[in-house]
């Protein structure tokens, strides 16, 4: 048990490095007597510094100025819950926070009573009155930060900016700088078991980025793939890290004492049946498309490789359609297998009690993973 515990500790440290959660503990203020003040200093809103930053406008010279985003635990939770509550309807809201050098810090988020954000540019206009009211009451209640961005959801089709989103964001970046766009996919979050979120800023009109940004691959459904492809060069993604206060971490640790029940009892296979079926049918369509393309080119080996050389995701290697499809199928499968693993584990834990009478029929685990 001890070896396991120390292994777990090492694993945790590795993740603390790999992952990007920075608990605002007294890393820089080890010797400082007022340790507690220093650690939660990110929560302090410095009026003077913020106003000065607004006047300086260092971002107007460099379209790539902001590189990082720090999201508070509370903002993340609120955004994900709101996005999920919309179901399959896109919802949107605003984020409040401040800036810090080349990072935008998101402290809080709130929902807007607007629907159908993918059908018009500046859907926010409907909710201006709400925004003003909310900001005013917030300032009174002690939340002094300004609106620093907007978020919306793409239920089931990934985190990227559609054509409408790009136009909206370009408008925002002209008049409301500094502004950030965040996209959340609540369906994929639940299906994959990890938060699907992306933070973006658009380039100004006509600006060519000096180098192709390498972005993480994600599967896009067929009906949206054109929209994605046309606009994917017009914006760039920012790195997201999360932070939480010392009180937050303490509470979250204690929360785990009650939470483990939910982790064990969650059944992703049951909850995501619809979504997975949709993904598989989409994959089938893509396969048919690929097959048709291959069947039509008789001079397959000569023409196919150079034609398929797409710089779709900034990768200059050959990314044929079939490769993409394979990756998609691998992703779906991995998620399914994870879900099945949970079910099998639960079955073994709670069902195979009378082992002397029943022969142990369940195998020890599922088949090996699909190699990607």
């Amino acid at each position: 048990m001890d070896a396991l515990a120390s292994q777990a500790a090492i694993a945790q440290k590795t993740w603390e490095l790999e992952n990007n959660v920075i608990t605002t503990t007294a890393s820089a203020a080890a010797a400082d007597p007022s340790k507690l003040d220093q650690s939660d200093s990110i929560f302090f809103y410095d009026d003077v510094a913020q106003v000065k930053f607004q006047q300086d406008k260092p971002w107007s010279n460099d379209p790539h100025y902001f590189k990082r985003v720090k999201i508070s635990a509370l903002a993340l939770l609120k955004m994900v819950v709101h996005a999920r509550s919309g179901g399959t309807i896109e919802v949107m809201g605003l984020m409040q926070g401040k800036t810090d050098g080349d990072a935008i810090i998101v402290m809080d988020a709130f929902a807007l009573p607007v629907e159908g954000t993918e059908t018009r540019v500046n859907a926010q206009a409907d909710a201006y009155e709400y925004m003003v009211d909310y900001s005013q009451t917030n300032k009174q209640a002690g939340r002094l930060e300004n609106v620093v961005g907007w978020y919306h959801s793409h239920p089931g089709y990934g985190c990227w900016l559609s054509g409408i989103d790009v136009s909206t964001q370009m408008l925002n970046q002209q008049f409301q700088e500094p502004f950030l766009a965040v996209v959340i996919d609540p369906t994929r979050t639940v299906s994959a078991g990890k938060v699907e979120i992306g933070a973006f800023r658009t380039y100004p009109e006509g600006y060519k980025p000096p180098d192709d940004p390498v972005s993480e691959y994600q599967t896009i459904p067929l009906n949206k793939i054109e929209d994605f492809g046309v606009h994917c060069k017009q914006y760039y993604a920012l790195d997201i890290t999360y932070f939480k206060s010392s009180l937050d971490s303490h509470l979250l640790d204690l929360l785990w004492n009650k939470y483990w029940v939910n982790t064990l009892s969650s059944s992703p296979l049951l909850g995501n049946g619809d979504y997975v079926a949709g993904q598989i049918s989409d994959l089938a369509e893509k396969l048919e498309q690929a097959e048709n393309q291959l069947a039509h080119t008789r001079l397959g080996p000569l023409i196919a490789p150079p034609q398929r050389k797409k710089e779709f995701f900034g990768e200059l290697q050959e990314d044929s359609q079939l490769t993409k499809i394979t990756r998609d199928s691998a992703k779906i499968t991995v998620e399914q297998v994870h879900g099945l693993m949970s079910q099998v584990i639960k079955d073994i834990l709670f069902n195979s009690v009378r082992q002397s009478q029943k022969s142990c029929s369940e195998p020890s685990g599922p088949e090996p993973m699909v190699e990607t």
Partner: protein
Amino acid sequence: MASSSSGLTFKLHPLVILNISDHYTRVKSQLHPPPSVHDASNGVDPSAAPPADPPRVYGCVIGVQRGRTVEIFNSFELLYEPATHSLDRAFLDKKQELYKKVFPNFYVLGWYSTGSDAEESDMHIHKALMDINESPVYVLLNPSINHAQKDLPVTIYESELHVIDGIPQLIFVHASYTIETVEAERISVDHVAHLKPSDGGTAATQLAAHLTGIHSAIKMLNSRVRVLHHYLLAMQKGEIPCENSLLRQVSSLLRRLPAIESGKFQDDFLMEYNDTLLITYLAMLTNCSRHSRRGGRTPFV
């Protein structure tokens, strides 16, 4: 404090807890700004800054009540007037209106505050809220970080009319609650609390993340079961007086295993299993077809 006899079950969402904690941290850090910011401007000696009294924050909790279950989903801040010991009513109404637009199903269920214990002055506020909701709840968060504590420092109080010394009075009584969550909430809380890898990573890291999550949950289950086991052993040896009600509960718990044992379940389970294996098989086929020779022939026969 007596415990509640109203028979209501309370469900608390983690969002509320994080909301209150964030509110408190914000107010505290505005009152006591970090030393680095002000050393040039004020000349305030930072070491003299430590708070004498942590500020109390107040707010309202909203949610739904369905039958006997009260589910607290969300919360927002309120203004407190120390002069009248009451909350700013106009502000509450305004905020409530705003929240109604976005969450039309939720209504005011009660209020929250921070501190270590419920105080007399809290009763005023509680009574004032009674005209919105005839039986408001009071959620109290204890913001002092005590690492020895194993339980969440959140208590829920209800008000009950008790006759004390012949005078009917409202007093606060404890109510028990459970933490309730939707899947999305659980994942994001897990994400922030347990340092899961933020990007896709390889299949191996995803697998590791998933399994470790389940592993920690099972470890918890194991430790709880051990506690029970230890307790029962002690009872058997006679070290602890026999408590029949507890024994009954343990016995009923044990009788619930196996959880499901019927032919139909086995069929459905194996069908699901086979479906997943089929998906894996298909994915393997697709994968292999990618590597097959890219001739004029289609890879699919």
